């Protein structure tokens, strides 16, 4: 561990490399977190199957790529397939959880995640997979810093997707309906908004967002049927740090998480990277709690 720190000190370019890679993956975390915040804010359900949606999107994209489809086709394909799945899951399960105890929804979506894991392993095989990309890389500082062009494309596409979503929620009629239902379902209902349809659309939209994020990520990162949970946890952590509905905060938190995770992976060893993510979650929640308690004591 100390030797790794020493390497980092002696070769700052390596630190730059880690930071760039972290920022590039962070955009994808931000998109998944945005979807989770959307569902959380509108339906008051924490979707534990979030990571599985990302993984499924990636696996569909890889399957499409193996059949000769280009990236510009696989991403919409994955998004459409996940939209349909989200729609189905909403009417099969989620609709029955609306307004119920939070624990029920966490547990039920955990069940969805477990079902999806094994089904995905059967359909796509259990191995780590990655789509073949042939874009090559840019080299900087005498090849000390290597930036994969594909990762940059994924980053740009995620940012584009995020901006589109923010625009959709702010400007479009449906986006306004979603925000209205999030603020006060009864009032929205009185004004003629079909709240159940809005809930359904929100959940399906979240699935589609995750699908697109997964499809994009599959071109540069490994995808694994049983690897979804860490994405759920990352999304949760980002939402908790930034707060619901704070898109800017979510982007900063996601990029920060990506960088922190990459550095931790290098310093502690890659086998501890997932442990770091889950450990950081605990630290973040404990810190949040400590701050809240202090504020409450201050009020007294």
């Amino acid at each position, binding site marked *: 561990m100390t030797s790794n720190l020493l390497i980092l000190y002696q070769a700052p370019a390596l630190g730059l490399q880690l930071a760039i890679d972290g920022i590039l993956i962070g955009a994808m975390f931000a998109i998944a977190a945005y979807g989770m915040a959307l569902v959380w804010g509108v339906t008051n359900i924490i979707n534990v199957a979030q990571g599985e949606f990302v993984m499924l999107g990636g696996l569909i994209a890889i399957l499409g790529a193996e059949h000769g489809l280009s990236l510009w086709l696989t991403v919409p394909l994955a998004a459409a397939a996940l939209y349909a799945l989200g729609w189905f899951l909403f009417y099969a399960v989620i609709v029955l959880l609306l307004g119920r105890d939070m624990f029920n929804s966490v547990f039920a979506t955990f069940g969805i995640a477990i079902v999806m894991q094994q089904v995905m392993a059967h359909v796509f095989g259990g191995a780590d997979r990655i789509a073949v990309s042939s874009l090559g890389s840019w080299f900087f500082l005498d090849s000390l810093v290597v930036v994969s062009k594909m990762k940059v494309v994924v980053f740009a596409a995620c940012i584009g997707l995020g901006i589109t979503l923010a625009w959709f929620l702010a400007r479009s009629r449906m986006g306004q309906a979603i925000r209205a239902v999030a603020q006060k379902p009864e009032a929205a209902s009185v004004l003629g908004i079909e709240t159940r349809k809005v809930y359904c659309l929100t959940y399906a939209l979240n699935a589609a967002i995750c699908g697109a994020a997964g499809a994009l990520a599959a071109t540069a990162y490994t995808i694994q049927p049983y690897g979804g949970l860490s994405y759920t946890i990352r999304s949760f952590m980002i939402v908790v740090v930034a707060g619901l509905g704070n898109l800017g905060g979510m982007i900063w938190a996601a990029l920060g998480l990506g960088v922190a995770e990459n550095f931790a992976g290098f310093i502690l060893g890659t086998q501890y990277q997932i442990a770091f993510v889950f450990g950081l979650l605990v630290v973040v929640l404990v810190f949040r*709690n400590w701050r809240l308690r202090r504020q409450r004591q201050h009020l007294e």
Partner: protein
Amino acid sequence: MAAYRALTPNRLLLVACLLAVGVVAPLVLPAYQLQLTELLLFIVFALAWDLVGGQMGYNSFGNVLFVGLGMYGAAIVQVGLFYDVGLYNAARGGGTQFVFDVPQFITGLVLGIPAAALISAFAAWLLGSLVLTMRGHYFAICTLGLGIAAGQIAAGIPWIGAGSGMLTPNPPEALGDVALLLYYLALGLAITCALSFAWLLSTRFGLALNAIRDDEDKAEAMGLRTHAAKVTAWVIAAGFLGAAGALYGNLVRFIDPVQTAFAGVTIGVWMILMALLGGKGTLAGPIVGAIVFQIMKELFWTYLLGWQRVALGLLIIAVAVFFPAGIVGFVRERGSAKVETEEQGP
């Protein structure tokens, strides 16, 4: 929720009958001895989860942390008393070097199980003041993170076998039927757990836990020391989980950090499912739930191999969506509905 009723003669008879069944079962059904031992440990898991989740309303997804700590703790004590743990794990516990004779094995077990309970209880005490101040889903997700982080960390420590896991001591040939010994140890643990919980829930402490579940702020305003009660319940649950984990490790004989010890997606979720299936917040619920679950699990594993997780996942969804009161809750609801109609009748 009905308050806990004390042991009436009828209940004592029921307990005695169950005890007799428990003692005789492995002798009558020797082919299912392993599954029965596992069932008894599942009963402890479900009861311990329910003390905090059902009775106190703190739905933990990370109780598997204490199972894993107990599992590793016991194995380390069992080996460490006589050999160097690092060398033992480097040699994968095999060869002629690491042989345990009968007194050594028994000593290891006798000291290992209480040590496991103490380690888990201590960990719960340390974590309690940090984690138990969270509410609702923050607590749920935080504990989930704790359980999984522990597995990932354990998988990186070479001293306890890292990712390739740790073997519990090989039982000596001369000892005879170790599986039967483990069964009776598990039976003793399950009975201790059920009876001590029955007693705990009949005291003011049990009422305090229920008050915390129903309205924590009010309970605190009434002058209850809610934080102390919460930590105490968690420590008790963790102690039982640790001891059960110690036995579970010796039962499966191989401790994989992610698949057996800190198995958040299997045992960690199963114990919630068992408590929920049987009936959250009741004493009989987790026991009934564990029995039903173990039968279903064995059926799934036998007839749906390869799709068993799908079946279990669907069961989780079905229970969470359609059956949140569980078997005991369902029976009670029907019972009270019957009483009401009878009262209204004449």
